[in-house]
């Protein structure tokens, strides 16, 4: 979707603000969001593409004025409610419970802890590479053009890289295709390429000199380009 998350090349955000001696987490709730994210993924509640699309659908004004872990929280809750893991109503009721008891730990509201084997908790995401179902259409050095796609759903073809001429740099093998995997349409693995673009192809004469941009793009985003003359 052409959302506010797709920031590449936008103007007006000012200088990069850095924080000296930044802590790993700025508040305990950020670590809790991180733990919830890993636990949800480890137990198969949703896949990474569904999660990313959950974040992308955040209210755009809220997205820009909130930080990273609030984006995560928003995306996690949206997807979990959609999938029926939690209901919007029970989440709302418990939010009210903790709003009224600002110092109560999370376990205060737990009615009964589950018995049996503890839930899984894995640090690493599942690998995205899959056995190829078709030979790669392109080889390193091939000229390609990105398609001018504007799907309403999830895609990993950034807006600034649509309809642009590039050259295949590397073939990464077949990987889970986010555009289908985010929408319950299966992994449908596609060949993934690192594609090299001259920055002028993206940003014209305003591009800085002597700059290349490398983007990892799936085969359905690409069409053959004119051979180099």
């Amino acid at each position, binding site marked *: 979707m052409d959302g506010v998350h797709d920031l590449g090349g936008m103007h007006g955000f000012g200088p990069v603000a850095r*924080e000296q001696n930044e802590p790993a987490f700025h508040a305990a709730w950020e670590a809790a969001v991180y733990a919830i994210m890993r636990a949800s993924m480890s137990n198969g509640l949703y896949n990474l593409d569904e999660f990313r699309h959950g974040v992308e659908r955040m209210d755009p004004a809220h997205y820009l004025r909130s930080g990273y872990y609030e984006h995560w929280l928003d995306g996690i809750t949206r997807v979990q409610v959609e999938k029926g893991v*939690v209901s919007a109503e029970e989440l709302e009721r418990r939010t009210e419970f*903790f709003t009224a008891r600002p110092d109560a730990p999370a376990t205060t509201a737990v009615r009964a802890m589950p018995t049996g084997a503890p839930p899984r908790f894995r640090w690493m995401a599942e690998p995205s590479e899959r056995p190829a179902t078709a030979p790669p259409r392109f080889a390193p050095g091939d000229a390609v053009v990105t398609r001018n796609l504007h799907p309403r759903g999830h895609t990993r073809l950034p807006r600034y890289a649509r309809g642009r001429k590039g050259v295949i740099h590397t073939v990464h093998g077949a990987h889970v295709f986010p555009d289908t995997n985010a929408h319950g349409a299966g992994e449908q693995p596609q060949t993934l390429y690192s594609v090299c673009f001259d920055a002028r192809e993206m940003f014209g004469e305003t591009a800085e000199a002597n700059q290349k941009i490398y983007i990892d793009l799936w085969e359905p985003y690409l069409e053959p380009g004119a051979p180099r003359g």
Partner: protein
Amino acid sequence: MGKNHPNVDKYVESRVRALESLLLEKGILPADAVDRVIQRFEADTGPLIGARAVARAWRDPDYKRRLLEEPRRALADFGLDFDMLRVVENTAAVHNLVVCTLCSCYPWAVLGLPPTWYKMPAYRSRAVVEPRKVLGEFGVEVPESREIRVWDSSAELRYMVLPEPPAGSGHLDEAGLVPLISRDALIGVAEVRLPPRG
């Protein structure tokens, strides 16, 4: 980072605790998961695997070749099984910079958690369109004669920069080099320098 209104923070805290309690109850969140996350990222502050791999690459040409061509095998030296890392090398002719314009993909397996600036709109929007200007704000001057390669992490591959070793560091061994290699240098927004003498 934009500061939220205090009431917004309170709401977020309540909502996180609500979700946490529901997922504990439903057997999705392990009871010790939050503590483990804090332990891993706040207490374990040893050198980054990325910095250790770079120091070894500077001292061992065979290891450097492995890090660039077979990164999974190279990372196994440090007890990490991670097949999605790609390492891009800075040279006199090329400077590399890593960004994720669509979200905030970051090689945390080798660099830990990303800094806030990496995740905020200013860096994500500008790194692709005016990298020299951004690098200048970080104190890194890249002349026009040196090519800049920006790696936009749009898939599950994760990029790390192999910086140039600092001039005059020939006397240092691997262990002496590791503390000089900052997280920022491995993202591509800093160079590795010897500490000032004295």
